[in-house]
Each structure stands twice: as structure tokens, then as C-alpha cells.
């Protein structure tokens, strides 16, 4: 009986507190509350985006650790799964190609390029992340851009060799599946910007589309060797 009363009282208190705050908020500074709420949402979104990045990085480290036991094909499978879960490959590819050129593609061309491009990204990871010498990623900070996108900064430490650390900025955008990696910058070198210049140069040449597909396929073959 007592317990019931207590909880009832508690409920009442909460409700009345809620009403009071709402009234105060609407009357006085509605916008402040809205901003605070927005900040909280931002923080949560940032945290979700961060997990996408750190999960992907732990896949990278795992693949390096298993570098000796996994074949190139095994690593491709491993990375394909991880990349599709964490990257928006199609959005990145669209940006690389640019809207003008992209609109000219047929659906079949889009499908072919998307498939070849995805395989290229996967092979690049599989080829480069193949041995482990105590590398580690350390999360540094995150930044929400004016448009509500998120950048997650981390540092790759390389204990062996001469270049000791590389700063990686992961730029994430939200799509219907959630936060996805859209662009990556290593020491300020933006992957999309670099590829954009390359791909557009090739596409603007004679028989650009087929030339692009041929060059990428050649690169993939070199990785698979």
C-alpha cells in the first residue's frame, strides 16, 4: 500500500515536473531547450558514427594480425563484408565520377562501374593490410560539420619503420542504413578528391568509360598477383 502510494506520488511528481519544465520552456527560452536537445542528439549521432569507424579499424587490425594465415582471397572476403557494412561506396563513387558524367551513364554502366570499383577498394585493403607490426589506431576527436555530417579523427601508430604516425580523418554521412564512411583523408590527403581528379581525367579521354574499367581491372589483377 505504502509502496503504491510512493510510486504514485513519484509519478505525479514527474508529471508535474514535466509540465512545469515544459511551461517554463515554452514561456521563457524555448530555443535554449531546443538547442540543448539538438546538442544531445548531435553527441549521440557522433558516438554512433565513431563506432562505425572504430569497428572498421579493428577489422583492419585483425586482418593484419591474421595476415600470414589468410590468403589474398580470404582477406578480400573479409574486407568486402566490413566495407559494405561501414562505407557508402555508391555515394563515394558518384562523387568521384561527378554528377555530369554520372547522368550520362546507362544503368548497366553504373552497375558495372560500381561492381568494379567496389572490388578495387576491397583489393586495395586486402593487398595493403597483410602484415602486422604492432600498428594501432587511436581515436582522437570528432567534429560535426555545419551541415550535420561527422568527421572522426584517429591516428595510426606505426612502431616499426620511419614514419611513425598517420592522421586519418573519416568523413561520415548518414544514409537510410545509418552512418556510413563517405571519404577518408590520410594526413590531409582526401581520397575522394584525389580519385576525382584521376577518374575524371580518364573519363574525359577517348572511350573514357571502357578505359576506366580496363585500368581499374588491371590494378585489381596486380593486387591479386
Amino acid at each position: 500500500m505504502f509502496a503504491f502510494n510512493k510510486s504514485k506520488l513519484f509519478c505525479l511528481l514527474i508529471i508535474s515536473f514535466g509540465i512545469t519544465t515544459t511551461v517554463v520552456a515554452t514561456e521563457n527560452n524555448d530555443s535554449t531547450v531546443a538547442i540543448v536537445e539538438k546538442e544531445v542528439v548531435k553527441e549521440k549521432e557522433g558516438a554512433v558514427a565513431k563506432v562505425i569507424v572504430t569497428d572498421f579499424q579493428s577489422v583492419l587490425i585483425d586482418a593484419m594480425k591474421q595476415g600470414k594465415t589468410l590468403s589474398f582471397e580470404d582477406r578480400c572476403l573479409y574486407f568486402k563484408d566490413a566495407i559494405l557494412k561501414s562505407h557508402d561506396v555508391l555515394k563515394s563513387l558518384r562523387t568521384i565520377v561527378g554528377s555530369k558524367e554520372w547522368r550520362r551513364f546507362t544503368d548497366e554502366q553504373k552497375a558495372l562501374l560500381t561492381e568494379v570499383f567496389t572490388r578495387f577498394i576491397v583489393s586495395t585493403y586486402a593487398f595493403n593490410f597483410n602484415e602486422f607490426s604492432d600498428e594501432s589506431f587511436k581515436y582522437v576527436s570528432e567534429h560535426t560539420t555545419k551541415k550535420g555530417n561527422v568527421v572522426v579523427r584517429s591516428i595510426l601508430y606505426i612502431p616499426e619503420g620511419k614514419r611513425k604516425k598517420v592522421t586519418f580523418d573519416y568523413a561520415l554521412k548518414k544514409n537510410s542504413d545509418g552512418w556510413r564512411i563517405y571519404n577518408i583523408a590520410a594526413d590531409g590527403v582526401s581520397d575522394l578528391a584525389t580519385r576525382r581528379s584521376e577518374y575524371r581525367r580518364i573519363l574525359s579521354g577517348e572511350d573514357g568509360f571502357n578505359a576506366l574499367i580496363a585500368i581499374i581491372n588491371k590494378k585489381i589483377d596486380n593486387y591479386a598477383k
Partner: protein
Amino acid sequence: MYMTSHKNSDSSLFAVSFVAITLLLSGCSIKQLTEDGVEVVEVDPYEGFNRTMFDFNDGVDKYFAEPVSDAYTWVTPQFVQTGVTNFFDNLKGINVVLNDLMQGKGKQGAEDTGRFLVNSTVGLLGLFDVATEIGLEQNNEDFAQTLAVWGVPQGPYLVLPLLGPSTTRGIPGGIFDAAANPATYVGVPVQMVQMLNARANADGEINFVEEAALDRYVFTRESFLQYRDNLISDGKIEDSDALFDFEEEDEDFGDEELTKEVLDNKSEVSEDGIAVIDENKEIIVNEIEVLVEVEPVADSSDVSLGSTE
């Protein structure tokens, strides 16, 4: 005494005149040019010359620098290579401090002075990087960055013989850096070791570009310019909005609702995602369409390809 001061005024005059040339060159070459569908790269108006130099450097690297560097790496134990790298990095430390101060980075200048002193003494003339261990990390500053901070425009991209990627701003930058580096004054053999060691250290990066780039010239140019920009701004995360910059330019792709899943169904994606791509895609699609016509319900998984029409 007279000799030294004379030398100094000479080199500063040199630097000043180069700054002037830089300003002149960059003033007349930056133009916003775009043609339909084709991006004219305004930062690289001398692309023809640059590509020739790029190929020349490539040849020198392939037939001379790389073999020598490989031999050097092969005969030199890793700890010696690290020591050599540390030694030359430490000599650059003086220039780093000068540029810290010229950019008004007082605190960093004090830290870099501490770093130089610690490594020159406890670190045995710089062979050991003790300073990093005690939290005085290496900063990357040079005169080209200082010029940028002072507002000197970057100017066109240039590929210099033997020295590689640069910009017109990078030329006075490089001259100042060399002048402020003690290694410049001790003789050619020392400089040769420095260059050799630098080439050996860059081996990983050079191979990466070779493997990853679709167009090595464009890849190198874009990476170089972005890397330099990042050094100038000291890579603040607040500047990273630029990673999304393309959006303004590209708003309408005409198929925003198109998803990767839809495209996957249109494409012959192999189970493992690594099989060789069919180059006769069109033909295969047509064949399946024919197949669908003859036997409309033969195999639902095959039909999905043709039925997306």
C-alpha cells in the same frame, strides 16, 4: 666575419627575388577555366612540361635512385637507417625553429628548440630521437609554409628535375630550407647520403602510389598539393568540412534513390566478389533476356537480371 655577412645578405637577396618571382608567376597563372564535362586544372598550367619532368624523374628513379636505395636498404641494418634518419631530421630542427618563429608560433618554437637541444646532446648529435620519448614530438615546418602563412599565393604546380613535386612558392621555400640546414655546408657526400636515405624512407609511399594510382601523375599532384595544404593549416579538424566539399558542385545525380542493392542485381557479382569481371557484360545481359523470352519461368534467380528492364 666579412665573408659570412656577405654570404648572408647574398642569400637573403636571393630569397627576396624569388619571392617576387613567385608572386609574379602566380599572379598571372591562376585562372578559373572549365569546359563542358572536362576539368581544366588551373593549378597545373604547365602540365606538358611537368609531365616531361615527371617521366624524367621516374627514369632517374627507376634506373639509378631505386637500385642504389635498395642496395643501401639491403646492406644497412634498420637501426643504422633509423639513426641516419634521426640525424638528418635533427639538423632540419634549426630550420623548424626559425620557421616556427617566423610564423609566430612561440610555444612551438620553444618546444622545438628544446627538442633540438635534447637530441643534439642526450641524443648523441641527433642519432637518437630522445625528445619524442619525453613528449617533444617532431613538427614539420619549412619556409614554403611560412610564405603561405604570410599570404604568398601557392602559384602553379611544378615538377622540378630530380627534386620532384613543388610549386612556385616551393622554390624560394626550398632555397631557404637548404640555406638553414647545416647539412648543406658539409659537402656533397653528406648530401648524397641524405638524399639516399630520404629515397629509402619513401620506398613504401612510392610503391603505394605505383600500385594504387590509376594515373600516377594526377595522383601525385593531387596528393602533394593536399598534403602541403594540410601542413600549412597544421591539419585542424575544424578544417575537415572540406572533405564534403564536392556536394555543392554535385547536387543532382538524377538517380538519388538508386541503391547499391539495385545495382548489384543488375551486375554479375560473383559470390566471393573477387572473380574476374566479364568484359562482355552487354552480351551476357542480352543472352539472359533471350533466355527469359524462350523460357519465362526457367530459373527465377537468372530471370532477375533480365527482368529489371
